[in-house]
């Protein structure tokens, strides 16, 4: 990320999809006018959901949504890495394996056998893993989905030739700046905000409900202290495990928190 990308040569950008719901790509598509401004400053060479198709092109920046979940994914991400100057993982799937990584702690083959009439037609890996488990990732943008504002900030930083700001503060920071009273204190709900990374603008607490951790672990996340507070709010060990084992179940900090409770309780 040391060599700034100078205008007027437009940086070539690709947006790739792996195992995911497309929500992060939609965050980009939903930018409206900003997307048009952006399109004037970069050359969008591959973005299947928006139109341009050239998955094998050499690019300056590749945004990658989704987790690596099939044998084909493993090959494809290596190919993309080899053809991209910078690779940026976007969203919970690409940074932590996503909701589909809930299978990592279970017998996935058995699930497939239970659900599909022709399980042999399903080719998936036993584990759903983040992009960084397979190739070097230059920057990770957490969130389920990422917000359009986050995407713009990253692209803008790259266009200016500086490293994107990596803000790993807790959701509480944004919650208080927005003037929202703490829902854990005022309503006794099990809010994940104190261990979750900023980025969403404290969307859920702003609507009077608890954060469920879609932006992944914040820095210095004291999951032990939060789990203890969840227990004193009346949550069972199993319910506490479920709080940590949701959208970012395989994020190491959340996985360790859940494993610790499973070892010590009946969760």
């Amino acid at each position, binding site marked *: 990320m040391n060599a700034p990308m100078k205008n007027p040569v437009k940086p070539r950008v690709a947006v790739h999809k792996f195992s995911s719901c497309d929500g992060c790509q939609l965050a980009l598509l939903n930018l409206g006018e900003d997307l048009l*401004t952006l399109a004037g400053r970069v050359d969008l060479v591959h973005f299947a959901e928006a139109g341009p198709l050239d998955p094998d092109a050499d690019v300056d920046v590749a945004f990658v949504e989704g987790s690596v979940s099939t044998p084909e994914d493993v090959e494809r991400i290596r190919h993309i890495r080899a053809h991209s100057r910078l690779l940026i993982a976007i969203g919970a799937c690409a940074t932590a394996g996503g909701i589909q990584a809930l299978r990592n702690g279970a017998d996935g083959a058995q699930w497939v056998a239970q659900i599909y009439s022709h399980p042999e037609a399903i080719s998936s890996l036993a584990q759903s893993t983040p992009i960084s488990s397979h190739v070097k990732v230059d920057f990770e943008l957490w969130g389920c989905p990422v917000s359009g504002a986050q995407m713009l900030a990253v692209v803008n930083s790259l266009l200016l030739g500086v490293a994107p700001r990596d803000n790993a503060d807790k959701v509480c920071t944004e919650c208080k*700046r927005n003037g929202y*009273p703490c829902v854990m204190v*005022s309503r006794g709900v099990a*809010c994940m*905000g104190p261990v979750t990374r900023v980025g969403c603008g404290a969307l859920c607490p702003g609507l009077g409900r608890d954060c469920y951790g879609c932006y992944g672990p914040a820095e210095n996340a004291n999951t032990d202290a939060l789990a203890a507070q969840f227990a004193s709010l009346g949550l069972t060990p199993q319910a506490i495990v479920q709080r940590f084992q949701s959208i970012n179940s395989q994020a190491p900090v959340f996985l360790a928190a859940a494993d610790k409770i499973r070892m010590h309780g009946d969760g």
Partner: protein
Amino acid sequence: MFSQPDRARFLPLAQLHALVAQLMQLGYQCLGPAVENGAIVMRELDAPDGLPRGLQAEQAAGRYRLTRDPLNRYFAWANGPQAIKPQAFAPKESLWRVERDDAGALQFAAVEPAAPAQAIIGVRACDLAALALQDAHFLPAGRRDAHYAARREQLFLVAVQCAEPGATCFCASTGDGPTPTAGYDLALAELAEGFVAVAGSAKGGAVLDALNLSPATPQQIDAARQQGQAAAAAQTRTLPGRNLREALMSRLEHPRWDEVAARCLACGNCTAVCPTCFCHAEADEPALDGHSSRHERVWDSCFGESHGYLHGFNVRSDIRTRYRQWLTHKLATWHDQFGRSGCVGCGRCIAWCPVGIDLTEEVAALTAEVRS
């Protein structure tokens, strides 16, 4: 507020709306208590009779629950998560912007803050003491913060004596309440039939005069005074002294710091609700067209990662050093900086800590040997 009893007036309950109406007529946007997300917050009143009655909140460490005041008073609640701070020290704002002109030169321009005339109705003695500390930080001679100053000058503060302190309150211990003594435009003490009202500024005096109120009787003033004393006596939490500088600074390696760090989420809620915390972060927000940028200021916290970041390393990478920084600044080194402690005893950091860490309990544990 009772130092000049002959200046005290009596505002009957039925006339409270007349006070609000007059403030509105003078052009003030009036903020008063309202319920939001299960808490009492300060929001704009839409009508002179818009002040709610009977609000109350039960507070404990990490817990805040709305209740009803059986006496249906206007101000029987102790405090909510915020009062004055967000109005004077904005949680997020633009300080300046820069544009690249056609010749490629940078043009800098100040961003004028929106500073509406605001009256805040129901602020407490602790809030006023805290505001004086924020003033000391943001408005020292020679380096006044223009944005803070613009909003601060527009504030009209209607203080209320606390009759029902929360279980988390300890303003009597810090010497900052529960009866307002300074810093208000008007101060009210709520009695069964109305309010003892006194002015604390010329503009407060003008508002009070215009209401044509009768003088408060000696009995009413006495009842209000006693109410304040009873509220002070009802407080259960204390700090072991008003200057804990030596007691804390001599215990920087106390094992209690590790203990509290194990419980602390480092979420920064204590610093956000603290009415004296003033830390902020600044960052540039470049526009997408690549030709302009805004310089933003947001509330920051010593519990966050970037707060302790110096070039190339972090001086407070763990929760232990962050909690210690907060507590020792607030209660110890604040004395060097501002000549007093940074704690006004509002108890917000106790009630609004999601895991209920109690500052008074931590200080007691840290200074136990000193006191014995």
